[in-house]
């Protein structure tokens, strides 16, 4: 990767018990992937507040990933189900606002899916590279009146 080419900033909110361990597994198996992702470890996707997605864009993220346990695997039995519900609604709001949903990714990645973690990060990084910097939200953050 050359320095001047655009490199997206990706913020990943992941749950401690499935996806975080999945990412660890990717490491243990030395599965290489782009260095663009910054992981924020949360106990559970149930803790994942929608404001955090906005916050990520405010600090200039070009894409956001939210990832947790597969349905039925939640360490806290139901956190991911609660999260899933909120995402369904939140996406709707963002669509209406004209926020580009290609910038937001939701996945279930288990502690055993190191490979999936690698693939997901590779794909998100690639697609975001193609989309380019998220000028849409950067404008919002810059434009003063």
């Amino acid at each position, binding site marked *: 990767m050359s320095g001047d080419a655009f490199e997206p900033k990706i913020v990943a909110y992941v749950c401690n018990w499935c996806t975080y361990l999945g990412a660890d597994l990717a490491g243990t198996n030395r599965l*290489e992937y782009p260095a663009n992702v*910054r992981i924020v470890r*949360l106990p559970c996707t149930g803790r994942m507040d929608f404001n955090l997605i906005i916050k990520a864009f405010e600090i200039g993220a070009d894409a956001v990933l939210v990832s947790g346990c597969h349905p039925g695997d939640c360490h806290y039995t139901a*956190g991911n189900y609660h999260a899933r519900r909120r995402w369904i609604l939140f996406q709707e709001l963002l669509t209406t606002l004209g926020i580009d949903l290609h910038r937001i990714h939701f996945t279930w990645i288990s502690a055993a899916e190191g490979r999936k973690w690698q693939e997901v990060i590779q794909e998100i990084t690639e697609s975001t590279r193609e989309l380019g910097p998220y000028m849409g939200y950067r404008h919002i953050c810059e434009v003063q009146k």
Partner: protein
Amino acid sequence: MARIGVFTCWCGENIARTVDVQHVAEALAAEPGVVCSLAFKYMCSEPGQSLLSRKIAEERLDGLVVASCSPHMHLRTFRKAAETAGLNPYLVEMANIREQCSWVHHDRKLATDKAIELVRMSVAKVRHNQPLNPIRVPIVRRALVIGGGVAGIQAALDIADAGYRVVLVEREPSIGGKMAGLSETFPTLDCSQCILTPRMVDVAQHPHITLHTYSEVESVEGYLGSFRVTVRKKARYVDIDRCTGCGECWTSCPSGKNASEFDFGLGRRKAIYVPFPQAVPARPVIDAKACLKLTRNRCGVCLKKCQAGAINFEDQDQMIEEEVGAIVVATGYELYDIKARDAGSSVSGYGEYGYGRYADVIDSLQFERLASASGPTGGKIERPSDGREPKTVVFVSCVGSRDRAKGIPYCSKICCMVNAKHTMLYRHKVHDGEAHVFYMDVRAGGKNYDEFVRRAIEQDGARYHRGRVSEILEQDGKLLVRGIDTLAAVPLTIAADMVVLANAMVPARGVQQLAQKLNVGYDEHGFLSESHPKLRPVETNAAGVFVCGACQGPKDIPESVAQASAAAGKVLVMFARDHLTREPEIACIDQRSCSGCFTCLQACPYQAISRQEITDRAGQVLRYAAQVNPGLCMGCGTCVAVCRSKSADLAGFSEQQVYGMVESLA
């Protein structure tokens, strides 16, 4: 101003190869609040840890970030190290620059830059860490066992024999469960009651066991170490303390036409009855639906006959409170009900087998009663329809089991052995009788199990046909069993006198509701979920609640007993500690700003949130606010996400900490 120490680990070459650790250390030294930033070869090693504690003392650190491997790997290690050095362990954070950086990137520059950002995030987080103390939970050294079948009995006796008090709750009027009704048991053919009833008596006489029969668990509150359980003692109309069990009442009771639950409808019982002679307690109960006194206010013979004055028609359900520290669930199984129709569909299982329409088509538990010496026929094999001795009996395996179409994909595990046993029992009693078995596969894994099946075939001449029964028809007093022998590839029609269906094993009715009260998960079939199939087979995800026996999955007697002892063992491990500790990283609610919408209460997966009155000095209720029960909260943070006023927060992952991390990426 914070005094944070940052320790970047080489992890030998593991990190240092791709991340310029020295550079990371220097970069972080410039961070506000960071008073010392070092790189070291092995932070987890003894010298690494002593470096840590030395710096804590020298630099009077109030926050620590170790940039090395995954927190799942060593967070505990470093928190311990901090604790020994006199720093609150929860002021330690890690930055994962190995699994999530050096091991997955090759470009040294990129990896180093990322590492720096990751460590910055952790620094930003640790700025807001609060010292926390593990929550100490006292233990009530008293166990509740739910279900008085063989598993429940075993668990109760094991715990009680260890010297702890046990409360045993059984739904039926007597303990004993399904096993008490069995005739003989495979693979040894020893009499079921002969081996079970002594243990039932042990339970009754054990000084440490409180027995609540004809009772059900109404509600469960509290948490690991101290549960508050409400037990509903159903109205029995007989004072079992006064009653002497003389039998005057049931011998004189005029209403004798009632189907006996214990004999699965094959036998009759009085309106006041003891389910079976060896029942524990050996005290009668009045069937309110059948009793003439209770239904039509006539009769009352038993009342007159009873010398002990134990009969009480005014009896009411009573609620009993029990304090326990651990709970063992052993609610067992029942047979898949062919006649039951699942909501919406008009289809009931196996209409083609005529169960419920043809009197002589029975299920395997009914056959057990026919074969049992204490059964309705005194152990003679007779057809329910006309009492004649059946000369040809067909046993059908996998009725429900392994039948995806009927929604039961699993194997019930015991039926193959049960069928083999039944053919033996039948042939031993009816020497000139024919026993046929239709099976899909014979699954006889277990000590002396396959030998047992071979014996049924080779010595006792059971005729095994590999294939399913397609339908059962009634024609002039015979049951035409139409099926196929797939090995011979010939359709068969057997004119039988009786058919025995080996129905699938399903969890006892009501177990789901119980599971919800206990916060224990269950699968789509209603079997309770253990927390790890291999390594935590009797634990559940609800701390302090254990499972054993067929409520967790199809099992035979030996397995149930073994699992029961395992569960008892786990309870004793708990009771051996002088107190329990729980992670302090849990939610709390700022009641000053809580607006009391109680969305959190609804969302909490652990019912850890309750309403609390907010009163003024005069004790006047001003409003209601949410409150977290630290004993129940597991720290998932769902409440934080749904709280609109952001009054809920989660220690260890507080809003301040998380926002701090994200903002550090700006």
